[in-house]
């Protein structure tokens, strides 16, 4: 079917919306990468089989045929609460089942068809309070979120364009094509205050306007889906869970800047996102919402997918463009900016996935409404991947300006196992640490920059007292060194040398003079590097030196790891008071480092000890001390 006018779009949206209403029940099985990995597709098959076995009317597609009613089972996009997957959501009611296995299918369907209450063992139970929650929206993890970009994720079937249209999809595109000039669109985006969600926070509207006024017959719109930070998966979830929103945002951008061709650069490591985007593009083309003469307005826009080969640096826009062109992904100096000379030398607008996903909302609701959430300088919401030592981990979306405390304690449910909070690493390998003192700071692009961190791609890693911040910085430095494209000297050689010093520190071979050299080098790399990757690579180190310098000094001067993480710096000793001389430790020691006489305190020869820790776990009297 072809949607060739705004009227048809409205009629069909209405018809399909009514299709939903006929359902008596809807079972949404999360088919995001996390849940799929945990077996959600088997859950989907089991549920389908179960419903069929019971002869209940079931459609695996969205729309029930005329005059019918029954249960629909669909695969949805990511709900964000990945740690609890596979997730199954029931409509109406918004009941969320967690950690569902295929063996639960019978119970779920029985409860649903027989009108019993939800299956209690599959409901979320708060790890601290023990309270049980049935409705998704009441779970603290969701309750404090504002899901606008992620609004459809987990709610609609991302492989069926009709669901997106039924939810008001492509209305923003229709609006700009019929009611607004390209300049109006750019102005609306400028007025909205939307800033690039890829990390830098550059005003999106200004980028659009610059590309619009740039001269050229041929222009491109490029979507940056090369999300490469360790642990970050916001863009993946959007591409998997609501691909049409990204396509719609890109088409609007194409109209605004005067481009008829778009590229989505997506990591090849995101096969599901690639597949969903391909399906979405195909369906949009078939319906005429992409392609030639969209909605009968004469506007043409096509989108191609380019799979990246897994280089972190290709998230940098000029490297990404080089990669699309088939060149080695290396950044080039700016200016010229892509808006002047981008893909194949043509004016190019390049935005991140989440930025494009914000666009339909900006257009539909208008700049004013958009500005109502978030802060004055950073309006709107931001998605984060919350990981680390908090009770609830997963994908979250919060208004800009939320405090760290709300994220860690309300959404994240506090720290696991009653441990003490130490820091939050924000922005992955490009970001920095936030500590106790930042707990009540309003988080947005500018406040984070002012304390030496950045939103970056939006990874949030919560650490506790058992985390060694030196090792933490080493981990990120190892990542950036491996991912540096090697073009400019400060990044290529500087990260190597910073890593060398950090490695020395955790290996117990740190030198006192390293403290000064490391800081000086980090500053030089930050100043001197060519692209964002290099300029931000020292951030984890600098922020470690700013907030946890004593820990680093302890490593390189006192040869001690205060968190007790760095094996090389651990020493074991036997407390003669507690030791009963049972000899268990000396028997498990693989290198014969422990000697003594029965019933008298034993001793550890630190020269021979390989710090394997076997003795500690063998001691029935907890007489062996680490540190």
């Amino acid at each position, binding site marked *: 079917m072809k949607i060739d006018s705004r009227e048809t779009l409205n009629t069909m949206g209405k018809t399909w919306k009514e299709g939903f209403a006929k359902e008596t029940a809807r079972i949404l099985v999360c088919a995001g990468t996390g849940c799929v990995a945990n077996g959600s597709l088997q859950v989907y098959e089991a549920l389908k089989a179960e419903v069929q076995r019971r002869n209940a009317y079931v459609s695996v597609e969205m729309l029930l045929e005329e005059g019918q009613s029954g249960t629909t089972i669909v695969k949805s996009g990511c709900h964000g609460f990945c740690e609890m997957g596979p997730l199954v959501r029931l409509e109406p009611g918004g009941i969320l089942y967690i950690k569902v296995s295929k063996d639960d299918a019978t119970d779920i369907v029985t409860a649903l068809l027989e009108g019993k209450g939800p299956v209690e063992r599959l409901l979320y139970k708060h790890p601290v309070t023990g309270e049980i929650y049935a409705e998704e929206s009441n779970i603290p993890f969701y309750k404090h979120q504002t899901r606008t970009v992620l609004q459809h994720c987990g709610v609609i079937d991302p492989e069926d364009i009709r669901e997106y249209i039924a939810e008001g999809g492509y209305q923003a595109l229709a609006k700009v094509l019929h009611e607004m000039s390209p300049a109006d669109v750019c102005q609306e985006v400028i007025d909205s205050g939307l800033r690039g969600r890829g990390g830098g926070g550059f005003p999106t509207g200004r980028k659009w306007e610059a590309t619009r006024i740039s001269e050229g017959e041929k222009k491109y719109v490029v979507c940056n889906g090369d999300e490469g930070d360790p642990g970050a998966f916001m863009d993946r979830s959007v591409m998997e869970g609501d691909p049409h929103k990204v396509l719609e945002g890109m088409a609007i951008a194409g109209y605004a800047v005067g481009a008829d061709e778009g590229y989505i650069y997506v990591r090849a490591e995101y096969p599901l996102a690639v597949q969903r985007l391909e399906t979405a593009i195909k369906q949009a083309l078939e319906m005429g919402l992409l392609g030639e003469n969209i909605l009968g307005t004469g506007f043409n826009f096509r989108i191609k997918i380019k799979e990246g080969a897994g280089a972190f640096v290709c998230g940098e826009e000029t490297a990404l463009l080089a990669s699309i062109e088939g060149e080695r992904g290396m950044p080039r100096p700016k200016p010229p900016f892509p808006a002047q000379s981008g893909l194949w030398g043509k004016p190019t607008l390049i935005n991140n996935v989440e930025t494009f996903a914000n666009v339909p909302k900006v257009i539909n609701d208008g700049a004013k409404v958009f500005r109502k959430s978030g802060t004055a300088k950073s309006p709107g919401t931001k998605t984060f991947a919350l990981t680390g030592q908090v009770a609830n981990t997963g994908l979250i979306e919060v208004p800009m300006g939320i405090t760290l405390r709300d994220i860690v304690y309300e959404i994240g449910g506090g720290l696991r196992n009653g441990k003490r909070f130490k820091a939050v690493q924000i922005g992955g390998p490009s970001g920095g640490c936030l500590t106790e003192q930042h707990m009540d700071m309003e988080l947005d692009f500018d406040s984070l920059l002012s304390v030496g961190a950045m939103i970056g791609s939006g990874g949030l890693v919560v650490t506790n007292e058992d985390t060694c911040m030196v090792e933490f910085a080493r981990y990120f430095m190892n990542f950036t060194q491996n991912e*540096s494209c*090697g073009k400019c*000297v*400060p990044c290529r050689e500087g990260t190597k040398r910073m890593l*060398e010093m950090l490695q020395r520190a955790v290996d117990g071979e740190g030198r006192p003079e390293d403290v000064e050299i490391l800081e000086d*080098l980090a500053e030089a790399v930050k*100043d001197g*590097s060519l692209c964002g990757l290099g300029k931000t690579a020292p951030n984890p180190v600098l922020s470690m030196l700013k907030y946890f310098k004593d820990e680093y000094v302890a490593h390189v001067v006192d040869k001690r790891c205060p968190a007790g993480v760095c094996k090389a710096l651990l020493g074991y000793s036997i407390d003669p008071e507690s030791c009963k001389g049972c000899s268990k430790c000396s028997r498990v020691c693989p290198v014969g480092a422990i000697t003594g006489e029965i019933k008298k305190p034993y001793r550890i020869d630190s020269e021979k000890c390989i710090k394997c820790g076997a003795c500690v776990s063998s001691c029935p009297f907890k007489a062996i001390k680490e540190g």
Partner: protein
Amino acid sequence: MMTVTANSVFIDNQPVELNGEVNLLTLVRKVGVELPTFCYHSELSIYGACRMCVVEIEGRGIVAACSTPPTPGMRILTNSPRVQRVRRTVLELLLANHERECTTCEKNGNCKLQDLANRFGVRKIRFGERDMKLPIDDSSASIVRDPNKCILCGDCVRMCSEVQGIGILNFANRGSKVQVTPAFNKKMAEVECVNCGQCSAVCPTGALVVKSQVNQAWKALADPSKVVVAQVAPAVRVALGEEFGMEAGQIVTGKVVGALKRLGFDKVFDTCIAADLTIMEETTELIERLEKGIEGPLFTSCCPAWVKYAEHNGSNLLKNLSTCRSPQQMFGSLVKRYWAKELGKEPKDIYVISIMPCTAKKFEAARPEFTVDGVPDVDLVLTTQELSQMIRESGLDFAAVDPDSFDMPFGFTTGAGVIFGASGGVAEAALRAAYEMVTGEVLEQVNFESIRGFAGLKEATVNLNGKEVKVAVVHGLGNAKELLNKLNSGEAKYDFVEVMACPGGCISGAGQPQAVDMNTKKARARGIYHADKLSQLRKSQDNPVVAKFYEKWLQRPNSHEAHETLHTSYSTRARITGEDIELLNSDREHKVDLAVCLGTCCYTKGSYDTLQEFIRQAERNGIKEQLNLHATFCLEGCENSPSVRVNDQIYGGITAERVGTFIQEKVLPELERNKE
């Protein structure tokens, strides 16, 4: 003090008026501040990688001057503490990872890294040592690549791809493991490197250097059983002086001869006479082609890098390449074939050493077709730089060396032979000859200005007896590539095309003293044309010694003798080196050799499917045991790919669908034939 206008910027607090400068680097240099850089070259694209040219801009922080355009009102600091820290750190980081065996390095004293480390007074390196030792690639006849000294500035990469249009070098790997290397870590000799050496000419360190053969020269000079003969190329005489503090372009021919004699050379000859001979042969070839109306232009063949380029890139180009050997090889051939006899010597007793501006000449001299009965026509090629090394080593004060003149008979030359050293010279010399040969009239105005100079493509049209002969001159293989594309598409049409691989011609050869800014090149070119102007004779056909050679040895241009001595033939190098991949190996007595090409052309047209289909069908036909099946790389049937070879016969257009019929029609009969 300058006044401040709306168009002013401030450099270290001094107002400076903008005057269309495209980047801060040129602007800052204009006011007398020498910003250091490794990766900025005016003739290459802006790369912005070395971060040595950083400056601090108020309100913006640290930027690279090379890639930042100035805007009015900008306040630029060129030596602030932040700038100093970045520069110093970059230098230290580079030095830390550099193999610092400076004293024995080819580039000792002529190395940018050494120079800047010295200028910035780096005395201590706070970081560790280089932690890997990569193998040195000395496979090439001309260039030695030592990745341990590479600072990854990318100058060679851009030179090879942007200027030369070849691109054999590029970056591989990530992070601190990044290397500049030919594809798949192959050696320089295994890829389509043409040995032009321009990579080494821009390399700031000892990572790419010209292969030195100075020791072999000393050895030959010390060998009493050898008559050691030098030939000196035209471009050497306008550049060698630079190595000894003289101005670029100063003609030092006499001193070169004097110095060579004092180094112990028995005879010192001039390559220019062989250039005159080349003109006689090549112009005759051109006129013959014009008379016969042969399609396509005649390409010159003096430049060995261009010849190798042609061999790699166009099997259909080779038939248009002049069969004339280069002047270097004509000289060697004459000396060993004829002059040795006059001396009563065997060819092996004469040792010919060329002094060339060129690195590719080393490769040319080693080509097997220029070796007769195990004796090479040219035994050794030294670059201008290597000669200066020998002069320094000997302790000679070059400036004080008494000028001497070339020995006879290979010492008498014309201006036409001299201008071979600059781009356009061969074509100009050929036109001087062609005009007189065709029209029979004397050419009064011998200067063809339109094909001189540094424009990428230069053209001239000459009326020869009513026929308009169109001549094109290109230099830099990138320009040549562009011209070839135009010729192929029919957009351009010429009768005669001169190609020199190096930008500006031989004066800019990679064997010349390394100071390749445009002013130096222009001064050398001026020197060349000045030498031409000073010559008594300006046309090759007027050279009485050349006439004598024909009379004595060669009869006439393009005679049988001339062909034997002065011409050569070419073969394509399109094939990628590498072993075939054996897929099926038959131990039967009766078997067929079957090879499927997986070269680029064939692969893109589906030869991989063809290969798989062969395996399937062989099984179906029950002949799998009787096949030697190989995957091979380029059977040079690119126009009709996918190509398949059955025993010695090559067949084109064998797509997967055609495999069944092909086995019936070609493979099975071949098997039958074997049995008989």
